[in-house]
């Protein structure tokens, strides 16, 4: 079920679009639901669809199309490291390896304590700050070095 706060946020998004275009708010509604639950269960997607009055499969199409939605549970912190060209040229691979080593998981996996999920990502439009990563989609850390990664992990732990 969507919380009251989530509904209020979704309503604010809905106000951006014509009244007969509730569907347009599905991306933000899914995002809001995901921020609330950490990921999008099939029930959460169906709830969003029901609230917007669109077929659930239409909401699933969207949730499965965009990279930043999680259709399975992830750790408390999802770390998405950009490995696209500009980051790659500045050794994003080294950052990934360092993280894999530190967390003891491979890319795509979640640590046993459910704290961290490690991901590789595509270009985040911030190549000037390479190498970089995103924490839970919304917080970017740039100019990474193994040392900075260690500090970040400390901070999150």
């Amino acid at each position, binding site marked *: 079920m969507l919380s009251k706060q989530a509904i209020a946020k979704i309503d604010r998004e809905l106000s951006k679009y014509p009244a007969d275009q509730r569907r347009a708010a599905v991306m933000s509604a899914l995002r809001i639901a995901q921020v609330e639950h950490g990921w999008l269960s*099939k029930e959460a997607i*169906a709830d969003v669809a029901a609230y917007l009055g669109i*077929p*659930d*499969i*239409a909401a*699933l*199409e969207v949730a*499965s*199309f965009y990279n930043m939605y999680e259709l399975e549970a992830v750790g408390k912190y999802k770390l998405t490291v950009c490995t696209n060209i500009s980051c790659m040229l500045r050794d994003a691979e080294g950052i990934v390896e360092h993280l894999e080593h530190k967390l003891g998981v491979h890319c795509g996996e979640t640590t046993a304590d459910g704290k961290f999920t490690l991901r590789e990502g595509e270009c985040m439009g911030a190549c000037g700050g390479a190498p970089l990563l995103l924490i839970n989609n919304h917080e970017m850390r740039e100019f990474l070095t193994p040392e900075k990664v260690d500090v970040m992990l400390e901070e999150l732990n």
Partner: protein
Amino acid sequence: MLKIEIDGKEIEAKAGTTIIEVADREGIPIPRFCYHKKLTVAANCRMCLVQIEKFGKPLPACATPVTDGMKIFTRSEFAVKAQKSVMEFLLINHPLDCPICDQGGECELQDIAVGYGGGASRYTEEKRVVLNKNIGSLISTDMTRCIQCTRCVRFLKEVGGMMELGMVGRGEHAEITAYVDKSVDSELSGNIIDLCPVGALTSKPFRYSARTWELTRRQGIAPHDGLGSPIEYHIKDNKVMRVLPREEEGVNECWISDRDRFSYEALSSPERLTKPMIKDHGNWVETDWQTALEFAASRIKAVVSNNSQELGVLVSPQSTMEEGYLAKKLAQGLNCGNVDHRLRQVDFTLDGKHLGTPWLGCTIADFAEIERVLVVGSNLRNEHPLLTHRLRHAVKNGAEVSLINALDDDPLMPIANKLIEVPSELVSLLAQVLKALVDLPKITRKLPDALDLSKIKPTASAQKIAESLAGFGQRVCVLEPRAGVFLGNMAQHHPRYAEIYSLAQTIATLSGASFGVLSEAANSVGANLADVLPEADALNARTMLEETRKAYLLVNVEPELDCHNAHLATAAMAKAECVVALTAFKSEALRDADVLLPIAPFSETSGTFMSMEGRVQAFAAAVKPLGECRPAWKVLRVLGNLLGVSGFDFDSSEQVSREMLNGKDAANCLNNQLSELPPINLQAASGSALQRVGEILLYQSDAIVRRAVPLQKTKHGGVLSAAMHGEQLKKLGLSAGAEVKLSQGNGSSHFKVSQDDRVPVGCVRLPAALKESVALGDLFGEIKLEAAR
């Protein structure tokens, strides 16, 4: 008109048309997968790429509009190279195992690949594998074969009216699926089997039962609703293996409903009656035709020789015109006028007042073009699955649809106005619309004198419906107002059908709309035309049961399921001295019969159906009758002979038909006008008693559908509960799942209640034509509810 050139051929084309439309019209082949003339253009498969002069890139013929002077090359080296490359891409991830694929032999991919494929594959990487989905009992999936053309997705959204499939994921991982493990529930779902160009979606009942090249094709007419869809039987070893639509733009376009597609499964039901049977001291025994027929004739004779009025003849509106005609002729020969096919009708006040055979009032093609329409008393999707799509299509083109009904089921299209009230209010609702209409300044025609509407106060919604019909809405077509008022099955079953009919007709007349009846069964119109109706002063389908006859002749009828009042029908059959049933099935509903004569169902006999638009469609038997079954017209002929009735020497159903029509042009007999208006009671309906809304579910409409197992396994397969509005439940202190006792007249049964807010407060929605509800009575009217003990 534009002038274009395709492959050197000069062609005229209308502005706004696409290259593929012009090419198709001209018979110039262009390969395609995603394009379908009845669906929106997706242009995603890229198979239809063609060369256009002065363009450096090949363009998709399906999405490129023609322009004046355009020169198109569909088979130039440039075009073919593009087409071949697309073909190669399509095949890299497609299994190349045609011999084990169910689509083999009728696969568009296979067909086109033969023309385009380059020998060995250059793709040596691993192929994609896609998990299969379970989308229900009708359609089988093999998703690895899918080429993402999205025809199925578009069909369900655009024609079916509800997005039930989608393409989730993206890129190479994109796959077609329903939401999690939902099934596809559209009543038109089977069409995606035909649409799928590869073997990703195939027929589950048909799956692996035959290869297409082993199948013989025969033509037929779908035997269920009044649309009269032309179908094609695919036959192997004298067995119908599957049913497909034949294309008839004016009727079914290129679709058929699932009911018409999958009902053939009942043809091989274990309940098929293949030998005549006689009841001997309460036990059924098989016998030979001679014995059975003589027995039947002697029993009937015993009753009629005493009093010819003691016979009642009930004929299914699903029977052919010939069968109906002979049943009537037989009764007449025996001096009896008690014949009827309107098994679920209760109000016969209009008998004798019709100036012709009631029908749709326009062609189906016109129906699809309608701009303002009022449908009264119809659960559209259940009653007329494919016709409903025509309405949906009209709405897409801007039509305004208004509904007056006792159920608020979603017809899957935007509805402009609706009035949903308890059934007893229908007459009053129509009177309100009529009153509002009369008061519109634009309406100049006057009301019939007999109608005094001075006390009627239209509600805002009634007002809106009137305004919509009169063309006050957004789309006003002044020159050629295309409006229509139509009565659905529920209206026809309503206890005040006559009043509903005449009010609706008056509304139509005043607003310049056409008026018609959405006829219930495949041959409702035909049976009317063939006069399968009671003689003046004789008994009709209702009174034949109320005033129990000593003998009944049933043609294709399961009384407790097909008649308006199950309880009454059961009692009547139990009490009769003699019941002779011509039936295709051994039916529990025929337990009180004395003799069962196995007749050939629709695929095994020749005959004629007349559709709701008055289309007379004769058909031949597609397969030989099963076992010892015989066409019903032959059985009736012999019965006629045995009963000593003259004029029963027919050699073919065509002969019957010729005599029946007697040179008449069927089209001239169609007429919805009445010779006089029946009295209309505008007193507000009183009483707060709970009312039954007795609908006929999609797959309970007739004896055949009821035995089509794959249809019964769908969501529409009739799970019975007594459904009520949430408020009504609260009022009664009930919660969903509770058990109650419902009674009508002398009959009662126990049911679980469920909540359904589409049912007006004051009603119980309780379907008929199900064995669980046969203890109950009329489809509409009072129903008593008590807590179950």
